């Protein structure tokens, strides 16, 4: 990958010291700077004084502040410091690896940038929550997202809900005016935030007592870094963000994470380990479900030990995949036909529990469930034969040690047969899709994308994919594979949100560009996003964010001129009118208008060449591309176009409910 061309510019310093954290102060400063610059040029009005270099004919210009952001000097933050700085320094000490925001909460977001945490500013607060969520799902590390009070905060609620059901340890913050204005509706944007995030966060607090800020920051990180993960919501009043802390003494013991929280994890009891081993030995067809907790506890090596020693197949579920490689001989993630045969299911870190019948395991299967906390959840939805409250990594390590070598040749043969049958069906769907030559069928996208990423010139484990969309996802998931942790980000997991996909691409690409967490070995590589035209409409403006930050993302838009719900509501033209868009819309041109590259693919043979061109743009210029694949909504009707709209089997490659 060629490094981006850097212009030789002088580093720009902040135009003032610490900014006034109030919104009014910020707006006044910006207006003064702008007016002053205009007058300095030639005394004309600000509008007429626009530099001709910025005229539209000159093309899109990337601001120097963005181009130089990595080289701009960071201030040396020392006491006395504001509450915003105390918070930011604590985040830095905790290893927070990424920050996504829209303007607002000014003192805090400036402090986070000053602290040197990689920061990204986007177009919509909700998108920035989704970006943080994807960043965390792609890395395993805590990220932060921030928005302004009132409408900025309410924009964030949907993204927080998705992060909550994914159990993503994201720290969501927002400004919230002043405590002294409580219940007055003075000015604008006063709103109680915490009640609105009840039920969609692991922990939350409105910060009102300045001297207790360090205590509540410690609360937040204890929640983010222990137990079953989940998002945390803090809202900052001005009194807290602006409070002056004079020395470390005022932080008390909360200045040291080694004493305000523990890294200790619960270990399984020897009795539970023995019961698990006994159940495994009794089973003829045991299977491991490797889920969310395997990722966050970094238990993938331990899972592999148990699987290989016991010759036990492994199937994945969760909001990120690849902790057990799909290429491993014991992988059952692409063997849905075998799942009904399992007589013992070992659920490892399966935080989001299916109800009876939602997983494809038969009614005679027994269950072991392993998770580190929330013992009260074990036995919910599915009966358990053994519940183990323990860190997934520690539990699987102990089981691996206690388990004798086993063999399940007939069972593994059955899984292999099921895998072959699934691949054969995928090949059949692709062959069908290629016969439809006047539009791009989703099987063509799924198969050729997978071939490009896994079976071409790229190492099969190199490329991270944020797999989104609705109908298109049901095809793409069948074909793409994950060979290492978090190679696939399972976009619509559990919440089923249509729309965050491009935003997920921002977060995923930032994670890979920076090489954070499990993405370290793949630092800088281009990233793929798949989405539909309905979803693209929600967060398309983040293409500009991608271009601005030179995030090498290839966004594939499945453009079938409708919401994915069209087919189920197409019986009458009247009803279908609520589910359709104009046809042949050019999302690729929208991308170009936002500083990205665009490709428009209207026939199946054009798709792979477009992928190749987009990949070169990503490598050479670190720019995003939108590949606008023109499909047709009628592809979902199997009476006209087999195989039609697809369903899913869980767990495994197709899963996104649990």
């Amino acid at each position, binding site marked *: 990958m060629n490094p981006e061309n850097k212009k030789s510019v002088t580093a720009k310093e902040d135009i003032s010291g610490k900014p006034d954290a109030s919104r009014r102060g910020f707006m006044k400063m910006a207006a003064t700077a702008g007016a002053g610059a205009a007058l300095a040029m030639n005394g004309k009005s600000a509008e007429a004084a626009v530099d001709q270099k910025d005229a539209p004919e000159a093309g899109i210009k990337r601001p120097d502040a963005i181009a130089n952001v990595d080289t701009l000097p960071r201030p040396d933050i020392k006491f006395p410091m504001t509450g915003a700085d105390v918070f930011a320094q604590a985040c830095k000490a905790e290893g927070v690896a990424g920050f996504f925001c829209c303007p607002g909460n000014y003192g805090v977001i400036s402090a986070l940038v000053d602290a040197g945490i990689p920061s990204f500013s986007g177009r919509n607060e909700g998108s920035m929550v989704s970006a943080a969520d994807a960043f965390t799902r792609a890395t395993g590390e805590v990220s932060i997202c921030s928005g302004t009070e009132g409408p900025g905060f309410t924009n964030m609620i949907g993204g927080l809900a998705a992060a909550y059901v994914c159990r993503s340890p994201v720290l969501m913050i927002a400004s919230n005016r002043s405590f002294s204005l409580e219940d007055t509706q003075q000015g604008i944007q006063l709103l109680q935030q915490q009640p609105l995030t009840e039920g969609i966060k692991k922990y939350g607090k409105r910060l009102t007592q300045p001297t207790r800020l360090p205590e509540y920051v410690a609360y937040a990180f204890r929640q983010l870094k222990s137990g079953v993960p989940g998002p945390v919501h803090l809202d900052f009043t001005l009194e807290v963000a602006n409070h002056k802390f004079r020395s470390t003494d005022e932080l008390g013991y909360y200045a040291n994470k080694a004493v305000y929280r523990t890294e200790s994890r619960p270990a399984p009891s020897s009795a539970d380990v023995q019961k698990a081993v006994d159940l495994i030995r009794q089973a003829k067809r045991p299977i491991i479900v490797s889920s969310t907790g395997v990722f966050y506890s970094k238990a993938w090596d331990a899972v592999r030990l148990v699987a290989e020693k016991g010759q036990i197949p492994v199937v994945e579920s969760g909001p990120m995949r690849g902790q057990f490689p799909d290429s491993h001989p014991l992988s059952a993630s692409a063997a849905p036909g075998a799942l*009904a*045969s399992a007589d013992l299911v070992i659920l490892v870190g399966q935080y989001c529990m299916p109800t009876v019948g*939602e997983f494809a395991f*038969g009614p005679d299967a027994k269950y072991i469930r392993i998770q580190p906390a929330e013992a009260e959840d074990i036995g919910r939805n599915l009966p358990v034969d053994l519940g183990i409250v323990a860190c997934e990594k520690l539990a699987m390590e102990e089981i691996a040690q206690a388990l004798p070598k086993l063999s399940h040749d007939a069972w593994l043969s059955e899984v292999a047969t099921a895998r072959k049958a699934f691949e054969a069906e995928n090949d059949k769907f692709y062959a069908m899709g290629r016969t439809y030559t006047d539009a791009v069928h989703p099987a063509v996208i799924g198969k050729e994308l997978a071939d490009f990423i896994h079976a071409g010139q790229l190492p099969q484990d190199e490329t991270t994919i944020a797999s989104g969309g609705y109908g298109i996802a049901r095809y793409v998931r069948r074909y793409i594979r994950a060979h290492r942790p978090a190679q696939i980000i399972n976009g619509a997991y559990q919440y089923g949100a249509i729309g965050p996909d491009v935003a997920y691409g921002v977060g995923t690409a930032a994670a890979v560009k920076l090489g954070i967490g499990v993405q370290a070995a793949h630092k800088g590589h281009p990233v793929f996003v798949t989405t539909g035209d309905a979803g693209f409409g929600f967060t398309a403006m983040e293409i500009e964010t991608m271009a601005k930050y030179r995030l090498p993302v290839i966004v594939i838009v499945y453009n079938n001129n409708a919401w994915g719900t069209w087919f*189920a509501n197409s019986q009458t033209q009247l009803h279908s009118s609520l589910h359709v868009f104009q046809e042949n819309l050019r999302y690729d041109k929208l991308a170009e208008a936002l500083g990205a590259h665009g490709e428009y693919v209207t026939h199946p043979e054009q798709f792979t060449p477009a992928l190749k061109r987009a990949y070169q743009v990503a490598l050479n210029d670190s720019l995003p591309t939108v590949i606008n694949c023109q499909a047709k909504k009628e592809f979902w009707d199997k009476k006209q176009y087999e195989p039609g709209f*697809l*369903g899913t089997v869980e767990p495994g490659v197709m899963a996104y409910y649990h």
Partner: protein
Amino acid sequence: MNPQAILSTVQHYADRGIFRRVNNRPDGRGVGFTWMFDAFPLMLVWNTKTNTVQFKDVLTGVEARSQFQTELKAFLTGLSDESLPEHRRLDPEKVSLTMTRRDGALSIGLKLISASEDYAVRRLINLTHEMFVYLRLRWPEYMHEQFKLPEE
């Protein structure tokens, strides 16, 4: 045929928490329970004269000679295929598949040839589970229309 053996097998699944709200039919020839879909309880009936156990009207809205019915029949008869492992296969020496449609409602069952009641009921329960897995994958629109599964 021993109805008590059938009820005992059903009770086993109830004791495990797989079936809920088990209730015997007043005429003593069937038992109802909730399994996968809260709003759509199942009715397992038996006929001692024909030696069959059956899930009565397990699927509704099935059009005669439809692609849906044709494919479903092919799927279910395929469960007797010799290539299947023993624990998944309907052994034609022990049971044979029955499939009847009336007023758009499909009943699926097994006729006992040499099998015990426990074997037949367990196989019927398992094949019904596999049928719903197949329907979720191949016919999601049907599952949304008839069983109100989420459209998305």
